[in-house]
């Protein structure tokens, strides 16, 4: 019985005791985008206007689909959490994020045409 439950309900992140494959131990310098994600996360959790606690961030990351979870890097998972929590807490709307993304994408496209 319990074996069947294992298959259905174990979270993708909850991998303790499973064979995980080789671990890449190389140090790397955080990229600009990684540092920005980190900074935004710290700002949103800073007092006095802390919008969420660490357990809420973990809940959003652990609720990613296995496909998203396994494909995303460390700070990409943070970015997913930021997006989800910013919307959930009413800081910004999904429409505002989508509009900004569209604006940035068209700006990048224009710049690459000029090159």
């Amino acid at each position, binding site marked *: 019985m*319990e074996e069947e*439950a*294992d298959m*259905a*309900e*174990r*979270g993708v992140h*909850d991998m*303790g*005791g499973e064979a995980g494959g080789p671990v890449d131990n190389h140090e790397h310098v955080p990229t600009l985008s990684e540092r920005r994600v980190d900074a935004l996360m710290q700002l949103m959790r800073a007092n006095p206007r802390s919008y*969420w*606690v660490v*357990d*809420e961030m*973990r*809940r*959003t990351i*652990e*609720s990613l689909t296995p496909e998203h979870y396994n494909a995303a890097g460390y700070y990409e998972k943070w970015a997913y959490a930021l997006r989800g929590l910013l919307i959930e807490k009413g800081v910004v709307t999904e429409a505002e994020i989508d509009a900004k993304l569209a604006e940035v994408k068209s700006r990048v496209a224009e710049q690459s045409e000029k090159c």
Partner: protein
Amino acid sequence: MAAFEIGQAVKVRAEHPLRPQPIHIRTPWYLRGKHGVVERRFGEFHNPEHLAVGQYDTPEVTLYWVRFTMDELWAGEGSYGSNDSLIVEIYEHWLVSQF
């Protein structure tokens, strides 16, 4: 207030709350249903399962250090040294007393 004493034999609840609704549980899957011994008591903390869904004011729960032998965790059948063990932080509501 705390339900368990240092040195007391305990078992981790063999519960597996359903996904995929948003949950956050700090008791690792591989420990559920395993037997251990209370090593240390830390004090009272808010339940992270409640904090994870924005409930910041629910009653605090006691957090323990629980020691498990490697034989117990990985079905070693005596192949691990008797001192080979793992200590994990577990909240009180995940533990039951074992006599």
